[in-house]
């Protein structure tokens, strides 16, 4: 409860005594590159393979000749959009981005860079953390869209290359009984997950004390706590919105 209380106070501090809006625009852009563009490679690799594996494993489980093969594409599409693209991508990002945020802020803390900002009268939490949160909430949905596209495409490549499904069946499966709300749901999840990952990781990094060992511990705690928060939020959102 003590940590939860500190976390909410920390969130409040992001919006108190903010700097001028102009100060944040460049910082947000820099963070978008750091958080978003630099994560494109890992997200692409993970999502493509997940799509491919989902396709192959679904085909393996469909043994009845009465079930049309296009159902493989339906399952790949729905599992990708509803769960794999937003959740797995964000779990991967909690490792990459979360540890980066916590490590960076932790290092700034132990090398007195955060103290230097405070002494100048700058709200260090707002100056350092708010751009990361905003950039995450902008970039995560884009990465999730990319992951969804590549995952479905990965399923297509794997399915057709392994002669599991014909291209026509796959496309037909993708088009059948599509619910547009699935996309909205995935994007809502990605924004919520972005907020959780960026704020939890920032919280852990910002309050690091000690030395290099503690920075490492803060990074580990950031990833662990972010993953748990993402999975808990995943369940809650599914219950609330579906």
């Amino acid at each position, binding site marked *: 409860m003590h940590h939860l209380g500190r976390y909410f106070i920390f969130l409040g501090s992001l919006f108190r*005594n903010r*700097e001028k809006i102009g*100060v944040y625009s460049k910082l947000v852009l820099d963070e978008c590159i750091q958080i978003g563009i630099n994560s494109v490679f890992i997200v692409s690799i993970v999502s493509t393979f997940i799509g491919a594996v989902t396709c192959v494993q679904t085909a393996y489980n469909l043994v009845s000749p009465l079930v049309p093969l296009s159902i493989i594409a339906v399952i790949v599409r729905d599992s990708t959009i509803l769960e794999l693209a937003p959740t797995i991508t964000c779990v991967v990002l909690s490792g990459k981005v979360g540890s980066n945020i916590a490590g960076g802020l932790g*290092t*700034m803390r132990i*090398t*007195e*860079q955060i*103290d*230097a900002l*405070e*002494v*100048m*009268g*700058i709200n260090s939490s707002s100056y350092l953390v708010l751009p990361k949160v905003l950039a995450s909430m902008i970039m995560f949905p884009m990465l999730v869209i990319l992951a969804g596209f590549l995952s479905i495409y990965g399923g297509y490549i794997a399915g057709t290359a392994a002669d599991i499904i014909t291209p026509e069946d796959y496309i037909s499966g993708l088009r059948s009984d599509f619910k547009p709300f699935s996309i909205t749901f995935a994007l809502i999840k990605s924004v919520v997950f972005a907020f959780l990952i960026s704020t939890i990781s920032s919280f852990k990094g910002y309050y690091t004390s000690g030395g290099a060992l503690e920075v490492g511990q803060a990074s580990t705690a950031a990833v662990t706590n972010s993953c748990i928060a993402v999975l808990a939020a995943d369940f809650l959102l599914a219950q609330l919105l579906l």
Partner: protein
Amino acid sequence: MIEIKNIQKTFGDRTILAGVSGKFKPGDTSLIIGGSGTGKSVLLKCMIGLVKPEEGQVLYDGRDFLTGDDDTQKAIRREMGVLFQGGALFDSKTVLENVGFPLDMLTDLGTAEKIDRAKFCLQRVGLEAAANRMPSEISGGMKKRVGIARAIVMNPKYLFCDEPNSGLDPLTSIKIDELIREITDEFQITTVVITHDMNSMMEIGEKIMFLYQGKKLWEGSSSTITQSNVPELNEFIYANKLLRDTKA
């Protein structure tokens, strides 16, 4: 002038500062000395607002920093320059950007004016050639000098230096000390230096305050420190064999 009155600070059941008081005059380089763990850095942090003491006052030209409203605190902070122990330079910015950072954040100066001012301060500490280097590409002594340049870029009335000589060779230490004293004289700044370096004490200690177990045990100058009859201070000063032999 900076005046501290009865500063008290505890962490848990450990008393770090037990009622420290003192005055620091403009144009003076005042030193706070003492062994490790005597509360020097905590006292400095109380003075610059990074740690809130349980009791006491910190007055900047009569303005109470600790209980003052946001505007008063902001105004005082803008008159402060702080050199941190490791320099505390921002890793992602170049040397010039580091020095110009307070101007970017706290003033409405034009870009050219900001660059000119930052370059002037870098020139003042003899590092104009390193303007475009990253902090990771410069030595420890250079980092301290960049830290000093950043600390003076806003024309501060009060300059605080936390162990400016730590981790530096004796020659570089003396250069840093000289630089601090020159800047203090030149701009008539109230300078407070935390140190346990004997060379610094003898070189720039116009006023020295000795802390021991969170209390002020002695106050004087570099010319009187060797005549002190405080055993804890004498033990601290003559910890070095060379000095002991010189005294004998």
